[in-house]
């Protein structure tokens, strides 16, 4: 037995009143009469024996005490057993509505539907005095129902929870649940999902995580007995450097760890609705395979990747639909002290420019600050006093320090026959032959912080790349014109081209294609968003109006606003795609959530019924069989 509100127990002191009344009740007068026969005819129907009278007095007293006690117990919210599963004052339902909860059984009943059914049945057994809150979560938690005693409203909210094609973020959900759970403890968090909140937790058991005092997690883990799911867990596309209308696509395919057997998936690629290529991938359970391929296309064309796997249980991660990004030339400004001093840089830039991927503006220090917007700037032998923090930059042969560039020119340049490579895999060194490079160092600089040394001479960095305040920077401490072999090889134009592509990569991406995860909030101008989604092998377009500037990407597909902003959103979550299966291949409901048998922990109904019975008994005894 436990009282949820023991502070009301002091009301039991009211029992002193009937006790006093019983102990000090008025004794009946004894009167000797000679006319008893007349009194007998008067009240013949009320006569009863002395023992019955005494019994009635005791019964009346006991019933009064019982009635008072029951009323106080109702107020104090008596709960049946100390270790009853519903001894809590609050229950927070934390319901996973992420994409993986959409896995359905043969009858089309999704995990979310099954979870709602179990929760609804279990709620019917929760005592009325226990407040219940409902939080549904995907990438973020949403409090659908604050703490309430109104079960009908709560059930209505629960019924209204729909699946959302998003990955889930459990940390924020747990944080929100703890926040609400802590308001009135003891609290149980009912977590209904296809995966327990914490790996330590067993189904239906308290998790091993350290939760605030008074809060317990009850896991309702929902899973199908056997699930096979191969999905696209990563996707990236970019124009191929120095190539026109060609795109390089990286995608990752994964098979869930709990899959029963290896599968062969077929990745079908179409551009503009026309099949482009396909790949067949053999996947082992839990294996992730990265695929890189190139394709031809023009911007605005719709690229669709579709993964086909036999027995696949989860369709939301099988499609990627994006518009091919815009391949606008990179506009760069080349600011140099004196063009005649170093023609090699010009040659290199000219070579890059010929690919059609770059456009170059040239000028001297007097052209600084620039009157045009550019994607990047190349400082060659000169640096502005005030560093342009909003532009990515390439600094060649710095004459001194400026902004993030902590460099000092060497009065006597030092030639080196070879350089040591610091990070061979860096994109700036893509296809650059570092082994046959002879350079003349003209400046020393600090590569500490986020700058990563790519070439070193001795212990000094001579080429470094990194990011400063969100903008990329490539720093070259040598002069091409004074170097012996470097300007004469193909590596230098490649180095310049790679550096340009690398420093503007992010800006190009943002200017062309916005890739998001579903559930992201994006700022979009306009009043309507047009969604392009693949459904059952068909491309469907839907227009969704919106009013605020922030739009939640709640679908899988490509979108475009009415003023031309575009992007795509996909689940692309290895965790979400790795669908778990039920333990031992059997779907079982944790004992805590089973509703068969066992009574509700609350005694309110029993106590009220007891009160009613007492009133009836008392009425029968003292009104129907009244004492007169």
């Amino acid at each position, binding site marked *: 037995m436990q009282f949820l509100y023991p502070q009301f127990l002091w009301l039991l002191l009211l029992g002193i009143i009937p006790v006093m009344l019983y102990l000090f009740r*008025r004794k*009946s*007068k*004894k*009167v*000797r*009469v*000679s*006319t*008893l*026969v*007349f*009194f*007998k*005819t*008067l*009240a013949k129907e*009320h*006569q*009863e024996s*002395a023992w019955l*009278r005494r019994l009635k007095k005791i019964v009346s007293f006991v019933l009064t005490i019982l009635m008072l006690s029951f009323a106080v117990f109702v107020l104090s919210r008596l709960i049946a057993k100390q270790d009853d599963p519903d001894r809590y004052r609050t229950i927070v339902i934390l319901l996973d509505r992420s994409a993986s909860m959409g896995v359905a059984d043969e009858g089309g009943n999704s995990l979310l539907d099954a979870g709602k059914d179990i929760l609804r049945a279990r709620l019917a057994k929760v005592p009325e005095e226990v407040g219940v809150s409902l939080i549904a979560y995907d990438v973020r938690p949403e409090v659908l129902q604050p703490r309430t005693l109104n079960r009908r409203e709560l059930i209505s909210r629960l019924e209204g929870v729909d699946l959302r094609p998003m990955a889930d973020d459990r940390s924020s959900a747990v944080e929100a649940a703890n926040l609400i759970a802590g308001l009135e403890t003891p609290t149980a968090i009912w977590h209904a999902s296809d995966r327990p909140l914490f790996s330590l937790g067993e189904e239906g058991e308290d998790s091993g995580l350290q939760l605030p005092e008074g809060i317990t997690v009850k896991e309702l883990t929902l899973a199908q007995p056997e699930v096979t799911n191969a999905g696209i867990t990563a996707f990236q596309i970019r124009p191929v450097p120095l190539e026109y209308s060609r795109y390089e696509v990286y995608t990752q395919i994964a098979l869930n760890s709990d899959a029963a057997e290896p599968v062969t998936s077929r990745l079908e690629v179409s551009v503009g609705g026309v099949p482009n290529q396909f790949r067949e991938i053999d996947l082992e359970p839990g294996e992730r395979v990265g695929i890189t391929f190139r394709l031809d296309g023009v911007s605005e064309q719709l690229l669709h990747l579709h993964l086909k796997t036999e027995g696949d249980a989860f369709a939301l991660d099988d499609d990627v639909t994006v518009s091919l990004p815009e391949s606008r030339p990179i506009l760069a400004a080349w600011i140099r002290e004196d063009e005649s001093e170093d023609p090699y840089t010009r040659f290199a830039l000219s070579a890059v420019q010929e690919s059609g991927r770059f456009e170059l503006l040239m000028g001297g220090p007097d052209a600084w600050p620039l009157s045009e917007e550019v994607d990047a700037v190349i400082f060659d032998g000169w640096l502005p006093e005030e560093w342009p923090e909003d532009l990515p930059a390439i600094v060649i042969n710095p004459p001194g320090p400026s902004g993030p560039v902590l460099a000092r020119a060497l009065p006597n340049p030092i030639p080196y026959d070879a350089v040591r490579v610091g990070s061979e895999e860096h994109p700036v060194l893509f296809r650059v032959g570092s082994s046959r490079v002879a350079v003349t160092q003209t400046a020393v600089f600090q590569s500490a912080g986020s700058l990563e040394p790519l070439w070193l001479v001795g212990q000094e960095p001579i080429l470094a790349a990194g990011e400063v305040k969100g903008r990329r920077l490539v720093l070259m401490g040598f002069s091409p014109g004074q170097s012996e072999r470097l300007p004469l090889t193909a590596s230098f134009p490649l180095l310049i081209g790679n550096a340009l592509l690398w420093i503007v990569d992010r800006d190009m991406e943002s200017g062309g294609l916005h890739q998001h995860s579903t559930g992201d909030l994006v700022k979009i101008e306009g009043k309507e968003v047009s969604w392009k989604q693949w459904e059952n092998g068909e491309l469907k377009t839907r227009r969704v109006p919106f009013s605020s500037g922030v739009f939640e990407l709640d679908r899988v597909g490509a979108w475009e606003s009415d003023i031309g902003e575009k992007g795509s959103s996909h689940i692309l979550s290895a965790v979400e795609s790795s669908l778990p299966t039920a333990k031992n291949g059997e779907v079982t409901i944790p004992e805590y959530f089973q509703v068969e048998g066992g009574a509700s922990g609350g005694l309110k109904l029993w106590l009220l019924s007891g009160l009613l019975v007492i009133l009836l008994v008392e009425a029968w005894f003292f009104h129907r069989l009244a*004492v*007169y």
Partner: protein
Amino acid sequence: MAAAKQNDEELFDAEFLERLKALALRLRKRKQLRRKGIQSTPATGFTREFKDFRHYTGNEDYRAIDWRLYARLDRLFVRLYEEVQEFHVHIAVDTSGSMVGPFPEKRITALKIAVALGYMGLIGNHRVSLYSIGEDSSEPTQPLKGRGSLQRVLDFAQGLEFGGMTNLERSFEKFAPTRRRYGIIFVLSDLFGREVDEAREAIRHAARWPGETHFIQVFHPNEEKPDFDGEIELMDVETQEQRRLWLTPRDRQRYEDRFHQFLSEIEATCRSRQIDHQKWRTDYPFDDLFLDLLSRGSALASGAS
């Protein structure tokens, strides 16, 4: 119930005896105011009460000639005197427990009435027999006669023991004076039996009694109007039977109605059997009730001198 005896001094002090004489005088005057008592006998006798004149006939005793009248009228007339008949006065006193408890005033009243009736009987030259009735009827005392027997009447009253049960049926059945003792019967009782209707049934026996019967029903005002209410535990003074009641004002009214109904039924029963019935509430003025009792045509009243 413990038997109770009446204190002689308390009951028959000098004042009470004076009151009895005064009562007898008032009764005589009242009788004289009436020309003829309803109950007076037409017979003439040799009493001192002059009744009439008539012409002398030769067969009559000459001593009866009124010579004064002969001197005035020169005719012989004979004086006729009223003959006073000699009755037996039977006085039965209920000595059951209900006559003494819880209201001893009933016993005092009953004994006062008995003594007063006995006194009236004695001064009227009647024979007075005294009885007690309760569960049974006692044997009568030897008939008493003459004023000198008053002390014996008092002794009888003093010696009565009150208490015990009431059995009106049996008492009245057994109480049957012989024809030889034809006379006036006074029954002093509250007429409370074991059942409400017991008295009515018992009164039937009284119809067979030889003589003029008077039932004097003595009761206390609180028996007519109980002065208690609420939760009470009643105990019968005779049977010791207990009853627990919650007496409301409404119930009290019902009780009063039932009691009045009882009185009315007794009265009606008596009337139907040519029996006189007198309600005697102990708080009523004794003298007035007593005079009223005898003035309503009792033969006893005619004998008072």
